[in-house]
């Protein structure tokens, strides 16, 4: 499974925003829809969202920056999230994360030089009885170690 994000297009962006700006409190649904297609919230999208929802640009920018999920820059082809919360800490998630960072040559939120993987921390995936837990493009992984992460990344193109 490849994340397969599209490059920003004003027309496509406006179409997505219009399709999701329905009902009350559409802020998050619109931003989620944009990120699902473009992999991030492009700066160019913010004024269109603001205009459509009848809000200020500052408000929309404030929402984008408030929520950890929303990225400001395009991610790699795959997104690897490693849980760093307490239940996973108790079974060595920090060591797993250090190893993965070293092998990929990235820090948190960084993308590998070949554009393949973006590494993100996550605070709980609800897999707390089978940690350390990870998620690769929406695929949950339990009891991970370096080898299991490597194998999952190898499977991903």
């Amino acid at each position, binding site marked *: 499974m490849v994340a397969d994000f599209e490059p920003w297009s004003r027309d496509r962006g406006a179409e997505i925003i219009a399709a999701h700006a329905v*009902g*009350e*409190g*559409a*802020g*998050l*649904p619109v*931003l*989620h829809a944009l990120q699902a297609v473009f992999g991030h919230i492009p700066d160019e999208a913010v004024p269109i969202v603001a205009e459509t*929802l009848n809000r200020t640009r500052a*408000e929309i920018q*404030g*929402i984008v920056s*408030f*929520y*950890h*999920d*929303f990225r400001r820059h395009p991610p790699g082809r795959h997104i690897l999230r490693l849980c760093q*919360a*307490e*239940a*996973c*800490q*108790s*079974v060595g998630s920090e060591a797993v994360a250090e190893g993965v960072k070293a092998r990929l040559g990235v820090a948190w939120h960084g993308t590998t030089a070949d554009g393949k993987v973006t590494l993100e921390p*996550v*605070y*709980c*995936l*609800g*897999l*707390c*009885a*089978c*940690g350390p*837990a990870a*998620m690769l493009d*929406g*695929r*949950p*992984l*339990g*009891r991970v170690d370096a080898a299991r992460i490597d194998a999952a990344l190898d499977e991903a193109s």
Partner: protein
Amino acid sequence: MTARVFIPRDAAALALGADAVAAALAAATPSVQIVRTGSRGLFWLEPMIEVATPEGRIAYGPVSVADVPGLLAAGLLTGGAHPLRLGRPEELPFLQRQTRLTFARCGIVDPLSFADYRAHGGMAGLARALEIGPAGTIEAVVQSGLRGRGGAGFPTGLKWRAVAEAPGARKFVVCNADEGDSGTFADRMLMEGDPFALIEGMVIAGISVGATRGYVYIRSEYPHAIATFGQALVIARREGLLGAVPAFDIEIRVGAGAYVCGEETALLDSIEGKRGMVRAKPPLPAHHGLFGEPTVVNNVLSLASVPVILAEGAAAYRDVGIGRSRGTMPIQLAGNIRHGGLYEVAFGVTLGELVNQIGGGTRSGRPVRAVQVGGPLGTYFPPSLFDTPFDYEAFAARDGLIGHGGVVVFDDSVDMARQARFAMEFCAIESCGKCTPCRIGSTRGVEVMDRIIAGQQVEANVALLRDLCETLKFGSLCALGGFTPYPVMSALTHFPEDFQPPARRAAE
């Protein structure tokens, strides 16, 4: 007769390879009927698969793809003998000792089969609610003693009554499924394993308080729960559970990675399409909630417990439990634990029983050193407090909270000063920024912990840390800033040796 095999589709089972096992089994025996269920919640045995036999279901686990040919050769489809054969799941001690009311169907039924839901007691609660009417339903929920399972423990029935009595052009039922506490996964399991129970509970809440619209706010970290619950909503509309006789419909809202949105007022702001900022209370959401209208905000487990309370009667629910903690609590055993999983039991079981007898101690085999109960804002308990019974008041009496029922076990390799530092760091990352003690104090807390860990002026910095925790505790609007002192202070109180300068620690 076609053999039926049950394989979980719960995210934790998938994380341990359930899909691959299902695919291998389907490829090897195309005629077998595979039913994907939720999980029974015995995660050290997942993927745990079950086969229907004349003697009932027989479980096998943990099953890997490599085990499939051997299992089939041993007669898996007729319940044949094999080293992975566990016998009847109901007779496994971990399940046998539970009282499953809220999770009665989870792991047994196909979560997206409405026929299964009805066949296993679903819809009886709603039928009863329609029979006794809104006032009678609220009275039954009050009488059951059900308290909010999200963590605050406020009586659910009283909340409903307040909303029913509040004047408002529109009213809402909001389900808080922003299960952000580390060590908790019961909401996720229920939405993936028995979503109709939550829908039925919300419909009952809606009828009782006079709401016609519900929202379920599910965290984005739960893509499988979002997908399953979304499919369940479509089926519920088709089956008339939603949108027909009771004019009530439900919309899913997906969170965006902000822990603070699990706080009810921040959650309401988030549904309104804003930053998830905590609101001052009063006014309470019951009077001035979503879009300024009277709103019931309940946790997944509270709402999903309502159908069984109505179906079985308030007294049946109230009769289990201790003190003012009535009914059952779906406890989640997590972290470094041998038998981790979902353990629904009447209130009153002690922490020590949970960790040692039921949980089997640590997964690493090393001694248990600390147990954090109630998520990142919960207290770290040492084994000397393992006699504490699982009860809202008993935990409060020991400066703790049961929260959403997560129990995270750490072995003796844990450094409690680092855990205290993490509590401050987590608060700094997740603070909504409204209150100064939380927004700034948490960052200062990380710095103070860094100095303590480095052995700089430890006594003075520990005094500063205590002072800072006082300020956070009394100067924050919500539980994020207000409760971050629990893990910090409990680490300091129960594990003072970890806060000593490294040189002195080494000498001891």
